[in-house]
């Protein structure tokens, strides 16, 4: 077979599988969010549509598709339309460099479980940071183009939030890069083999990163851009129908992305709690790769649960408090973390 055709087929299958996972996860995320919220508040939650209300997210999407799509008269229409597309697209672009398992051999051919032919591309994490940096444009443009004071304030808050968390997030990651010596996610995961999880080696960085991840995904306690009590619905106030649906979907897809990253970077990624030889699986076999995907998904869903759980437990912060936290607490801590890690790397390697 022509190698180009072969690569294209691989691409299409990988994209279908990974986007399938992400869409399902986003839909399930909506359902689990509502259920967990209900349980925490001593309610039952959605239970009418399908068994245990499992079809609720699909009913929601159907409703959003049927709804009238209203664009305010004074809005900047092209940008108003662009913003949700940008937000959602950036969320999915990130998956180009995220591997879900180690490589495996199929018919003697080496296949990587990431959309890019080799998820080892050595700028993996930088690419992700760049893309999540762009995702804030979606919110800012939405807030600006709606021509509504609440939307605008939501957008402003979102950019204020970006400059506060992005730096400390980068600082937390620098420590990881020092340890792995690579920006590639596969290298970072492979470094953690045998219970050398980064959460154990680098707990301070983990706390900084997970806090920044909460801010990055705009979830409570840092959901300032859409704070209902003071901003109606923040940046998406003027959106309706499927445009709102795209923001909504992007929020949950973002949460899933952040959870995947946390489980890959800090929670040992796809490594099983024991050596694969115990189950009689050779490294590089298809079954082992499938098992590794399962392990990543289990870790990810636990982190997702943590995100949801925290949302229904913690009160929202004011945005001066977030900036205070980002600049005066996490930035010095992140620098301290880099110094400590550098000393550790110097001594132990």
């Amino acid at each position, binding site marked *: 077979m022509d190698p180009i055709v072969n690569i294209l087929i691989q691409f299409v299958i990988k994209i279908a599988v990974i986007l399938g996972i992400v869409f399902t996860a986003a839909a399930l995320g909506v359902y689990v969010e509502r259920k*967990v919220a209900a*349980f*925490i*508040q*001593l*309610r*039952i939650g959605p239970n009418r549509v399908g068994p245990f209300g499992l079809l609720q997210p699909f009913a929601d999407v159907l409703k959003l598709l049927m709804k009238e799509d209203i664009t305010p008269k004074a809005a900047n229409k092209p940008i108003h339309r662009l913003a949700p597309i940008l937000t959602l697209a950036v969320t999915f672009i990130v998956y180009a460099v995220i591997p879900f398992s180690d490589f495996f051999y199929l018919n003697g051919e080496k296949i990587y479980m990431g959309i890019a032919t080799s998820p080892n591309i050595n700028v993996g994490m930088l690419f992700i940071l760049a893309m999540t940096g762009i995702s804030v444009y979606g919110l800012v443009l939405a807030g600006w183009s709606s021509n509504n004071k609440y939307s605008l304030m939501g957008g402003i808050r979102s950019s204020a939030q970006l400059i506060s968390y992005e730096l400390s997030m980068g600082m937390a990651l620098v420590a990881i890069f020092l340890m792995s010596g690579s920006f590639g996610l596969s290298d970072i995961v492979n470094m953690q083999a045998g219970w050398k999880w980064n959460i154990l080696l680098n707990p301070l960085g983990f*706390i900084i990163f997970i806090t920044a991840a909460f801010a990055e995904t705009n979830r409570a306690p840092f959901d300032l851009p859409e704070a209902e009590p003071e901003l109606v619905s923040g940046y998406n106030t003027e959106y309706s129908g499927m445009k709102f649906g795209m923001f909504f979907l992007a929020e949950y897809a973002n949460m899933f992305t952040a959870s995947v990253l946390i489980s890959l970077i800090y929670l040992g990624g796809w490594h099983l709690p024991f050596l694969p030889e115990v189950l009689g699986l050779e490294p590089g076999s298809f079954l082992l790769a499938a098992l590794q995907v399962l392990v990543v998904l289990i870790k990810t869903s636990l982190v997702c649960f943590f995100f949801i*759980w*925290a949302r*229904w*437990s*913690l009160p929202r912060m004011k945005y001066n408090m977030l900036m205070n936290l980002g600049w005066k607490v996490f930035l010095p801590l992140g620098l301290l973390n880099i110094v400590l890690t550098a000393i550790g790397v110097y001594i132990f390697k």
Partner: protein
Amino acid sequence: MNIKPIDKRAKLNFLERIFIPEMAKGMVLTFKHMFQKKYTQQYPEVKKELRGSFRGSPVLVRDASDGKARCVACGLCARVCPALAIEVQAEETTDLKERTPAKFEINLLRCIYCGYCEEVCPEEAIVLSQQYEWTFPSKEAAVLDREQLLTPEAELAPKLHFLVEYRNV
């Protein structure tokens, strides 16, 4: 009086200032909540258990002894009704109690479920039932006439029992 003023700048110790243990405490609490008893009532399937004193929509009692209305059409309920929801017209009968309502209408769109009619009735003939789910296709349909209002005594047992037990006569 020994009330301490709340000092908003109370000295926090180090663990309290880094928030993380405090957040963990809060999250443990919400985690415990997830396994507690739920308070939701699955309304259309599971209905509330009502007490005898519940004030639903007013009905006329059909006496178990002779199968006729207990009402003697004295008009007290119509007089006392603050929302002017009741209209009564009397007629004579050959029965022992001599009077019976020829027309007895309650407009449920006006009724405020205050229960004054029940309180004032000398015969315990109009009581507030346990029916609280009403839908009407039109305004006219919301005006219930005598035949629609008459309800067998057995169905109203909890309320009649409550009146016997607790009513101030």
